[in-house]
């Protein structure tokens, strides 16, 4: 996309909403901005209805600021809290159904590859833990088996938050949630390991606590997906509403897990992806 596309026709500036004008005058398209520049440009996400202190919302903000080419990025989402925020995102984004996000993204990416062979169009899946590890796992894994050129980002808030806090495959063992009234009986689904075994070229776990590290994982995942193969980033972003902590504790909850060693930052890169990243990251510097 060129910025020309959404420029306001002369004479119509007055009737366009302020948010749109802001996006045109100082939005992130075609500008090399990142999370370090947050606060200095108009973000792609407009006011969203997610809860105060939402770790997922914070992750979405950081995610959108991390995109290597926002003007050519299409996001495929799924049912869940992130789907409530996505109608307010200044990108083409698709809400298909619950769980089929990686299937839709597979078809979309292939179509865009055929239509725009010389112009990278980044197709990124952003979905919750329920959509990724439970109801959509089959389609997530098969997109990886096929090596689709898409990045999959799981916003792991460890529950079905949008429907009122039910246990998901990513809830920690023992957690008492709706539909797990005596506590969850099994461990978090080992998604990073599954991703690696399923053939992902790049796998990372991260959290919004460390914004720069978060940005690096997202950028790497998207770049590797462009040319090497499927990639996966798992973002730990706790939910104050359903885990019943104060909204200002979201980041300290992550820090606590980090200290306990329960949550770890990990990165797995195939040699081919490593080589690719060395080339593109070297280019940048």
């Amino acid at each position: 996309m060129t910025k020309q596309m959404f420029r306001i026709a002369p004479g119509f500036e007055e009737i366009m909403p302020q948010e749109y004008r802001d996006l045109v005058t100082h939005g992130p398209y075609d500008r090399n901005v990142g999370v370090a520049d947050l606060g200095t440009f108009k973000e792609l996400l407009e006011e969203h209805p997610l809860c105060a202190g939402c770790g997922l919302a914070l992750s979405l903000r950081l995610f959108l600021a991390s995109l290597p080419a926002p003007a050519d990025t299409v996001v495929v989402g799924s049912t869940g809290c992130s789907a409530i925020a996505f109608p307010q995102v200044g990108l083409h984004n698709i809400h298909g159904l619950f769980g089929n996000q990686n299937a839709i993204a597979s078809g979309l990416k292939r179509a865009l590859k055929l239509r725009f062979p010389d112009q990278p169009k980044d197709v990124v899946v952003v979905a919750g833990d329920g959509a990724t590890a439970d109801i959509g796992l089959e389609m997530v894994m098969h997109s990886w088996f096929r090596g689709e050129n898409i990045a999959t980002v799981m916003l792991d808030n460890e529950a079905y938050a949008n429907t009122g806090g039910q246990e998901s495959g990513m809830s920690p063992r023992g957690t008492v949630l709706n539909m797990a009234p005596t506590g969850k009986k099994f461990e978090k689904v080992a998604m990073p390991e599954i991703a690696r075994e399923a053939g992902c070229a790049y796998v990372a776990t991260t959290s919004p606590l460390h914004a720069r590290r978060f940005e690096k994982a997202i950028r790497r995942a998207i770049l590797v997906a462009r040319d090497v193969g499927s990639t996966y980033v798992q973002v730990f972003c706790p939910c104050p509403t359903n885990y019943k902590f104060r909204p200002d504790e979201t980041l300290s909850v992550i820090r606590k897990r980090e200290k306990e060693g329960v949550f770890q930052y990990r990165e797995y890169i195939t040699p081919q992806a490593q080589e690719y990243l060395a080339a593109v990251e070297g280019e940048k510097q």
Partner: protein
Amino acid sequence: MIEQRVARTAGEVLEPARRERRFMTGSEAVKEAILRSNITMAIAYPITPQSESMHLVGDLYAEGYIPDYFRGESEFAVMSQVAGAAMGGVRVFTATGGPGTLRAFEMFPCWAGMRLPIVCCFFTRGVNSPLSIQPDTIEMAFLLDTGMIMLHAEGAQDLYDFTLRAFAIAEQTDVHIPVGVFADGFFVTHTREMVAVGPPDLKLPPYDPHRSPVPAMDMEGVPVRHMRDPFVMKSNFISYAAHASWQQEVMAAAERSRKYVHQYLGGLLETEDEDADILIMAAGTAVSQSREAIQLARAQGIDVGLVKFKCLRPFPTEEVQHLARRARAIVVPEFNRVGWLAREIKAVVDDNSRVVGAPRVFGGMTMPSEMILAQLKACVPATR
């Protein structure tokens, strides 16, 4: 691989100057249609009695006629994948049937709501437990209200023509909703008959995403608040009103397709002796069985005509009302237990006690013409 030329108009492919007659199965007729359809992608998943058709589409990919083709992981996934591809702005094709249709079901209303001009063949078969792989059109009852246009092929010739023409109907700017092309499993897919096909070196003009009433999801257009269901995540009057009007718009798109169904299929239905005392109204294989029954009935002096439904959505309401006005009885033979076609007809005609929802055959049985004849005979005393 035959060097293909893009036709100047769709009509060159849909109504070719010359046709070649070949002895082929319904599955092969699908292949022949897809060969001339200029699709960009096809995605497949096996299910009897559909599998052969998508094997053959796969062969077209291997030969270089289709740029991309793969096997998805389930029907739900495949229907999602073709949706993704269609949103990406390309012409796509897939096929399924029976349990596959039901497994994928959640996507069909989405296709319509997303205004995707996907063409999908449905090769009908039994879906209920106990398991059957045999012909049964019950899945069509479930699909009647998904928003898609529904065409029902009688035989392999229809299947070839309808599949090609489905693209022309689906992709009209004022329509732009999915078209399901239905054919009875085995009776059509596995039956070999003569089919007249156009020249293989000519294909449809390509799909133009810029003529779509909703933009392709390719970040080549204005991105702000750009979602196909933009307001439903809000809880206010305007969001409900937007959702409601969107649904009406999808229904209106189907209504607007009528003129194209007339243009490309010559009407939503076809008739033979429409002024007869008794009318058989049928779709799919039931039409074929009825044709034989009518010959037998006429030999016995029974005055019977035939109404063949080619298009079930939109439903030819006015046409049926007009045709029914003089008929003393309307016999509706069906290959399913629920009698959805009889239901549809009863809902629109005056004095619907004239509508006989029989015979009905299901569970993989065939429908002998004699069975329809018996039903026609039973109508005679009442009509004299």
